[in-house]
């Protein structure tokens, strides 16, 4: 047997011993967690993850939709504003020319007619721009909706943290300071069944309305 071969087989022995040890530790950890009921804590923490994922997806979708909505409105409004400015500039320079040499009356008559036409259509066009400004304003309603969902998310993360800290403290008593810090900033999630914020995943839920028409129908059914 060469020197190299013996070293390699010693390594193998060490490795399998190490794997055995890790296996035993994992088994011991698993058993003690179950004895202490901590496996349930970890399970609860894991269960909160899909909910958090749904909320994050809702935030991503809602903010994207709001940005698209605002940008679309701006893209509609900008050319309207540019056209208004161009037409005003062209009328203004035609008036300048006429004032420099106020001779031809037929030119002036046409200019007056064009100017009156421009003024007549101005309110209609500023109304159209205002409608786009309104659209941009309404697009900002995302902040209230996502803000509420972010608040819920913070609660979920705090809950996951507290469940994981319980597990940590059981196995590492020196980590108890984590628990104290966490307890200090717990805000007492009220668990009020009526304070749920926006529905991040309303599809297939029968206890939830998805639009104003359903609200109106329900109120009518109830006789309000």
């Amino acid at each position, binding site marked *: 047997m060469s020197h190299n071969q013996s070293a390699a087989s010693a390594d193998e022995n060490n490795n399998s011993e190490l794997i055995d040890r890790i296996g035993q530790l994992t088994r011991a950890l698993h058993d003690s967690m179950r004895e202490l009921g901590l496996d349930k804590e970890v399970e609860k923490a894991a269960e909160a993850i899909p909910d958090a994922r749904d909320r994050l997806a809702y935030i991503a979708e809602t903010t994207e939709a709001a940005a698209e909505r605002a940008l679309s409105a701006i893209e509609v409004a900008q050319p309207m504003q540019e056209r208004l400015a161009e037409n005003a500039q062209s009328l203004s320079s035609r008036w300048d020319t006429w004032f420099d040499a106020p001779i031809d009356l037929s030119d002036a008559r046409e200019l007056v007619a064009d100017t009156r036409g421009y003024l007549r259509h101005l309110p209609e066009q500023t109304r159209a721009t205002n409608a786009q400004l*309104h659209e941009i*304003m*309404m697009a*900002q*309603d*995302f*902040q*209230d*909706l996502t*803000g*509420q969902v972010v608040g819920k998310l913070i609660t979920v993360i705090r809950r996951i943290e507290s469940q994981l800290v319980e597990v940590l403290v059981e196995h590492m008593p020196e980590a108890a300071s984590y628990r104290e810090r966490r307890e200090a900033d717990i805000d007492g999630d009220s668990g009020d*069944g*009526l*304070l*749920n*914020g*926006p*529905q991040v995943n*309303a599809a297939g839920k029968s*206890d*939830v*309305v*998805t*639009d*104003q028409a359903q*609200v109106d129908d*329900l*109120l009518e059914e*109830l006789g*309000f």
Partner: protein
Amino acid sequence: MADADLQFLVVDDFSTMRRIVRNLLKELGYHNIEEAEDGAEALGKLAGGHVQFVISDWNMPNLNGLDMLKKIRADDGLKHLPVLMVTAEAKKENIVAAAQAGASGYVVKPFTAATLEEKMNKIFEKHGL
């Protein structure tokens, strides 16, 4: 449309939403608009006695919209005040609870300007405003 001088109180903990509602009311021709950021602050402003129409969110710190509504309905001086709930709470039990507590209307977020106007007009009609 009701009297342009009608005194509104807009209650929401998110300032962006208060601004949106305020701007919508302005677009509809109303200019007397006060704001409160939760139910407790709103009740303080209501005690002044000059508010004629309340538009309120539900989920707010300190005093939420539903509890504020219940307090308004329990107060002899305020109980006839129109209160329109504008909220993201979309569970059927929420709508039922708000109706039972005496909400004058219920608008679910996100909403359109047309929806807000329609619900307000209905309430104006009912209250003779």
